[in-house]
């Protein structure tokens, strides 16, 4: 569904991504792993058109989107849960959810989508009038994912969703992501928590200094020496 072919980006003269090749198939969960500064968020931004790819192609369902404006790309059916949640803190939970639903046409459709979100995160229904800034980290994460879901995306992009969450919540969230995928949404997961990410993914890529150094199915990655040493500790 989503493909990156030889994508390179730079910040001024400094190269960030170097000839990155990624492939995310329909209905799968694909993880992008890597340490800090590897370029994971830049990859996300390149997909979304926030950062322009200097070279290479980005293909979404047979369309080349590497030069498109971000809002057009979103219209195609991508939703994002950005790094650090990036909720609109001075707006209510409901408003935040509505912001995610800009693709949705019509009041009825919107209400239907909201209901679906509440199925996965029932607590949200009670917090609709609260300002997003007053919520706890875990609650904000729920809103963020809900905001991503409400537009009924074809693919959901998540950037380090487990960052800053208490371990017990982390468990909850990965379950929720798996459930979202089971219901048909393709998921592209950017994570540092390799173990958790791989546990639900079909395939994975490892990014280091802007280049893909390891890629493969979940099993292959679990076996790989690199992953074992760097990320899986034992």
């Amino acid at each position: 569904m989503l493909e990156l072919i030889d994508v390179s980006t730079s910040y001024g003269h400094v190269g960030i991504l170097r000839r990155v090749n990624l492939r995310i198939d329909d209905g799968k969960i694909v993880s992008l792993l890597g340490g800090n500064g590897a370029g994971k968020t830049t990859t996300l931004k390149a997909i979304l058109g926030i950062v322009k790819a200097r070279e290479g192609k980005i293909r979404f369902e047979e369309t080349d989107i590497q030069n498109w404006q971000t809002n057009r790309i979103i219209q195609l059916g991508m939703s994002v849960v950005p790094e650090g949640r990036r909720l609109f803190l001075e707006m209510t939970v409901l408003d935040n959810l509505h912001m995610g639903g800009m693709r949705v046409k019509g009041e009825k459709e919107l209400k239907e989508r909201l209901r679906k979100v509440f199925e996965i995160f029932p607590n949200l229904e009670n917090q609709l009038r609260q300002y997003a800034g007053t919520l706890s980290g875990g609650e904000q994460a729920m809103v963020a994912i809900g905001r991503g879901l409400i537009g009924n995306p074809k693919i959901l992009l998540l950037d380090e969703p487990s960052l800053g969450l208490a371990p017990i919540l982390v468990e909850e969230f990965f379950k929720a992501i798996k459930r979202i995928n089971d219901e048909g949404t393709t998921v592209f997961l950017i994570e540092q928590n390799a173990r958790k990410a791989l546990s639900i993914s079909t395939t994975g890529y490892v990014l280091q200094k802007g280049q893909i150094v390891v890629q493969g199915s979940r099993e292959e990655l679990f076996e790989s020496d690199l992953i074992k040493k760097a990320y899986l500790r034992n």
Partner: protein
Amino acid sequence: MDFLFQQLINALMTSAIYALTASGFSLYFGVLKVLNIAHGDTCTIGIFIAMTLNSLALFSGIYQILSPGLTILLILVISVALTGFAGVLTQISCIKPLRDAPTLVVLLVTVGLAIGIPEGIRLIYPQGSNPHTFPTILSTNGVHWAGVPIRYDNLLIILTGIFLFILLHLFLTKTRVGMQIRAMAQDREAALMMGVNLNLLYSFTFFLGAVLGAISGITYGIYYTIVRFDIGFMNGLKGFSASIVGGLGNIYGAVLGGLIFGFAETFAVALIPHGSAFKDVISFLVIVIFLVFRPTGILGHRIYERV
């Protein structure tokens, strides 16, 4: 007592004018993080377009064809709309290319515009350097209330001001576009990631700001009746200090600032001898004091610098 009441009316009038200009500034800064010094000139543009249209209407006899009331309304609507488009034009040519440039560069460009636009108006409009009389479009009659005469146009202005602000508030809180504008003000990149069309919103915000400026300008024209090509600068700066007082980026702060400013200025002029010469100095002193000691204004947001 009469004197007090008269001053009260004056104060409300000036507050309305300042508040309108101030909300434009707050809009630009809050949403687009642009300090648009040239905003005051949207007032002038609005005024001069209105005067031009008025002359045209008189010349072509449209006043005879349509009723005077309708003509005036048309003139007002068209001048406000045209000013809005002028704002969009400015945005596209001068602000958009500098979207990622430091705020300072954008500020300098707006300073350039603030100096260039009045000059342009002066050169284009016939006899631009001289003061002109803004056509009295409303009758100077009024009512008497508690023994004090209140002119109809004063009343209209105050009511318009209030009405507009309620409208603005509703727009920002209840509409989809308003929500997008608020989102963009809080976190531009996140709004982008939600699929907000940045270009469209930029243009729209400038349109809105320019419209507010035009209305402010026309209000000024109705109240003071004598206009010059450079009043936009002064008016703009005063509106700017009003928005700083209330909190840059905060529309409600702009209203508050406008009120404080309008009242302070009116009563200072009335009570201090030779006050009128120094009322401009007051405005600038206010800017300096607030920017040094409380740049976020009374209601403003905290400005954090990322370490």
